[in-house]
């Protein structure tokens, strides 16, 4: 087992696609949301839309931490890093995300010390190796990424490393799903659940979606066969009128999640009363802040943060796209003023943002454009 190629086998993919066609009731239109941007990316990368019948529609959800980060937070982070002897460390994903005066990459080209790190642990290593500088890690991500930041904070404290801090933008997925379900113009039949977030939080936190909202949830892996199998499982539930939480990604996701990861998060983080999401607005208890016990390593507690707020351009319909009300190509700015190179809205920023994925993989495809127009 290599856990990759096995789940890309063409003959099994064809079979799973065939099963989806059989299960989908031709008199019904299914709207299934894949919550996670990783799924959005995989769906485009593997061309899975081509394998689905026209009445099984995938709606791209809010699970892209880069996309939902308000521009003001980027401005705040970059303004902190303008201090002398600062190193701004962030994942590659952040590097091209525009702030009001440019992206981290543009700040780097102008002379700021900006480093791409693959891991929060690498940012800590930077601090160890550059004792005369201060390393600020610009943390983003959902519950998959937050435990790694948590453990890194704990290590920094253990080592008494004073020249390291975290600018925390970690967010949590459940409140975002709730915000989407609360939206009045929303109609969804079920959810492809975020597999990698679930390695940490487990499958229980989705119970309310199945019980109270009567929508099936299938926690899914990211290979083509995983996603197709999850759609099969959702269609089977819908066919018999069930709504339960199922775990398609059992090889990786324990039902109860990862307790060590949850402990590390509980040790270092607490919920913010509210946090702004780009496209969705303020959502209560939807983000993490660093606990006071770790204040020395919290860039927000240690330095004074300007607290910039930047509103998205009115013409950008990011919120509607994020909630699945509009397809990316139905936004007025899509492909004209707003492109991956010069993004106006949040969803064009990250390669897993649904607009960017739509633009990169589908824009020129006449069939997609006509579909979108006829919707």
């Amino acid at each position, binding site marked *: 087992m290599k856990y990759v190629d096995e789940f890309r086998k063409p003959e099994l993919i064809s079979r799973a696609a065939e099963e989806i066609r059989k299960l989908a009731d031709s008199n019904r239109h299914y709207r299934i949301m894949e919550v996670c941007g990783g799924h959005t990316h995989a769906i485009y990368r593997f*061309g899975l839309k081509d*394998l689905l019948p026209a009445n099984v529609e995938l709606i791209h959800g809010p699970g892209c931490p880069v996309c939902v980060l308000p521009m003001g937070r980027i401005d705040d982070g970059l303004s902190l890093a303008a201090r002398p002897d600062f190193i701004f460390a962030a*994942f*590659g994903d952040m590097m091209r995300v525009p702030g009001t005066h440019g992206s981290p990459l543009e700040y*780097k080209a102008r002379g700021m010390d900006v480093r791409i790190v693959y891991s929060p642990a690498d940012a800590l290593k930077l601090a160890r190796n550059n004792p005369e500088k201060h390393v600020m890690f610009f943390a983003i991500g959902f519950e998959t990424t937050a435990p790694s930041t948590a453990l890194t904070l704990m290590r920094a404290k253990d080592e008494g490393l004073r020249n390291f801090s975290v600018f925390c933008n970690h967010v949590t997925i459940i409140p975002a799903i709730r915000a989407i379900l609360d939206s009045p113009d929303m109609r969804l039949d079920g959810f492809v659940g975020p597999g990698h977030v679930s390695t940490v939080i487990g499958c229980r936190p989705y119970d309310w979606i199945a019980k109270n909202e009567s929508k099936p949830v299938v926690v899914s892996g990211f290979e083509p066969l995983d996603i197709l199998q999850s759609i099969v499982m959702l269609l089977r539930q819908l066919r018999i009128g069930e709504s339960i939480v199922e775990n398609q990604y059992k090889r990786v996701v324990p039902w109860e999640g990862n307790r060590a990861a949850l402990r590390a998060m509980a040790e270092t983080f607490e919920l913010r009363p509210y946090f702004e999401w780009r496209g969705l607005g303020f959502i209560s208890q939807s983000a993490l802040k660093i606990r006071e016990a770790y204040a020395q390593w919290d860039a927000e507690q240690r330095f004074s943060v300007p607290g910039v707020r930047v509103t998205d351009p009115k013409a950008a319909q990011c919120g509607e796209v994020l909630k699945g009300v509009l397809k990316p190509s139905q936004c007025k700015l899509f492909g004209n003023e707003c492109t*991956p190179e010069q993004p106006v809205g949040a969803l064009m920023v990250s390669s897993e943002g649904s607009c960017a994925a739509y633009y990169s993989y589908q824009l020129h495809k*006449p069939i997609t454009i006509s579909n979108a127009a006829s919707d």
Partner: protein
Amino acid sequence: MSTQATLAPKISFRETQIEMSHGAGGKASRRLVEGLFAPLLFGSSAGPLSDAAHIQLDGTKIAITTDSFVVKPLRFLGGSIGELAINGTVNDLAVSGARAEAIVVTFILEAGLPTEILEAEVRAIGRAAEKAGVIIAGGDTKVVEHGKADGMYITTTGIGRPLSGVEISPQSVKPGDKVLLSGPIGDHGITILLARGELDLEAELSSDTRSVFPLVQAVVRAAGAGVRWMRDPTRGGVATSLNELARDCGHGIVLREEKIPVRAPVRGACELLGMDPLHIANEGQFLAVVSAEHADAALHALRSTPGGNNAELIGEVCEQPEGAVLVTTLYGGTRMIDMLVGDPLPRIC
């Protein structure tokens, strides 16, 4: 402004300052070249946008190209900046359908650069030139203050002799033509990424830098006038080169994913870092579009030439999707693959 107005060049480049992405070989680079350089320097003709040009001089046709080399680190597994400079220049000429004859080299050196590093690169240049059968005809040296260059930059200009019987232009590319690739992709780009050490990754992989002229010559001999277009997919990778072709010829290019050769470590690094091998730089591969009737012969010729045994027919030119590149999978999925925006960056999302 007023003199420009009388010349009336259409400058469409509106960005207020130069960013890294303008040199990364993707869309931003293209905007700069087409929006600023071309209208001011090449008039309205869209002709001279390729890396090398063929010009008439007293009735003799010669090929000319120029390139500059900026790489960190200067040395890496499988090569170094000096070797890249020669092979890159030879390859730009080769894919224009010309054999490199002579190169002039300019060094921009940073004060404080250890002589032994410079010497190693000069030696590497000598060796690569000898291997490629090209003479170093001259050069220039400039030294800039410490901190103003990453050790050294190299700029080259090369001239070459056009091969007879081959006329290469994107406009000659027609639906039905086949796309050939000389070997596995991404080796150079991933080697450099790993050599920088920032990502803490290790793999047994080395840069593919080499002269592709013998392989180009094999294709030209086998397919002659059937060779429509060639390109060495350096920065921006295969995806960027083929998107440029698709845009220039107005047709679609459809690739078969399973036919695209990628070595395991390149694939592994791309999976881990969320990159696409089609966007990763190469320094020793080239793409050729060949007419359908010559495709088998060209592929056979490539594979029979040393260093060409991994060559593949990776796709074909189609009417649709117009001006774009589509990748198809064995199970019937398709995806559009765009030019790269800036440098490939590792992602965690």
